[in-house]
């Protein structure tokens, strides 16, 4: 007997409307290839044909029991006081604070939290408790394997987990200004 053990990233999607689902999936094909899709709701033949044609892996209406990882030990913080430029990749267990911008083509991956004072145009993948950043036109944000693609450019967001749910909040000053603008 031989046993291989893998961790897979599962993306659970509740399908309510065939077209809406295809619209969501189409632009993200390369990214979604890294996931096992667990589709809930009405998985129509058209959807199945589409997924198979593009080589996406999926299961239907399956209840997956997940093991919640024990709370991480307190990590430390990495502070970057420079522009994170295209081509740079930061992979870390620590929380990341960027005092300047994260440019398009840069990648920051942390199992912990992420804060950027400057605009984010790069890709952020974080799995901690929260993220705070200002969304640039090209910023790509992935939090606990969810691609957050309806964030609005120029806004400052706080994104956090609450009872396993992702909460997206916009941060504004009392006068309605964007807090990082001045």
């Amino acid at each position, binding site marked *: 007997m031989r046993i291989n053990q893998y961790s897979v990233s599962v993306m659970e999607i509740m399908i309510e409307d065939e077209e809406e689902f295809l619209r969501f999936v189409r632009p993200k094909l390369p990214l979604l290839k890294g996931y096992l899709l667990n589709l809930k709701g009405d998985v129509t033949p058209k959807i199945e044909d589409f997924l198979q044609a593009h080589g996406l892996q999926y299961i239907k209406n399956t209840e997956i029991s997940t093991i919640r990882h024990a709370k991480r030990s307190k990590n430390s913080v990495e502070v970057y006081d*420079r*522009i994170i*430029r*295209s*081509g*740079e990749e930061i992979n870390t267990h620590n929380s990341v604070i960027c005092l*300047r*911008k994260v*440019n*398009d*083509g840069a990648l920051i991956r942390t199992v912990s939290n992420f804060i950027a004072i400057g605009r984010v*145009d790069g890709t952020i993948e974080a799995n901690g408790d929260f993220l705070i950043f200002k969304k640039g036109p090209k910023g790509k944000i992935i939090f606990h394997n969810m691609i957050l693609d309806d964030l609005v450019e120029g806004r400052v967001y706080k994104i956090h987990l609450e009872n396993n749910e992702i909460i997206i909040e916009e941060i504004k000053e009392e006068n309605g200004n964007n807090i990082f603008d001045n």
Partner: protein
Amino acid sequence: MGIIFSIISGKGGVGKTTTAANLAIGTAMQGKKTVVVDFDIGQRNLDMILGLENRVVYDITHVMDGDVRLRQALIPFKKNENLYFLAASQTKDKTVLNKEKVEKVLSELKKEFEYIFIDAPAGIESGFEHAVYFADAVIVVVNPEVSSIRDSDRAIGIVDAKSKKSQEGKRVAKYLIINRINPDLVQKGEMLSSEDILDILEIDLLGKVPEDQIIIEASNTGHPVILNEKSEAGRAFKRISRRLCGEEVPFVDIESVKHSGLLKSIKKMFQ
């Protein structure tokens, strides 16, 4: 001791060699003892742009290998006595470069010249790394398009991570030249504006150079545009050269479309 300026871009074909040739002539015209070195080993171009292709006997690899002395490989630029040129090899490839050899040649050049321009190869491979390793400053040439900006951003990141000065905790000065600006396209919003580019790269603007047909003719005739009073790009390179020599030269707006009064009013009639 001279200053080494490496001219870089990330993306190829944006105008590094054109910039190197013109700025080198420009600083020589300002009275600075200048040398321009082709580091694009295996794909030399600068000799043609300078109109010196018939003069190249020895190149930088001969100097590095100790076959000839530096003096024998330096080619004087006929049109200005302050300028010399060191060619790249057309037959070898970039694997002939190594840090010790490069350092030896550059430190010799630093003793002889005030301004040393290095025409770096495109990309971010080893040839590029050698071209920026000993730089005191880099001049980043971009075209106003997103792919050029992103590639140059990457090249800047590598300079900050890998050049000798950066590794010693010192700052490598970084200057931006935006080349091939087409005012019509900027106005129509089809080209990135200088503000957009500076907002992304956040390095100091050294100058803007317009798209100019004369540059293409100049490349073929070996008579760089800075020597041509009629060329708008030539005048832009002249302003940049003066800035490099420490002069305060105001920035000229080359991004707004210039219509003659008559043309403007005719255009209005048809709007």
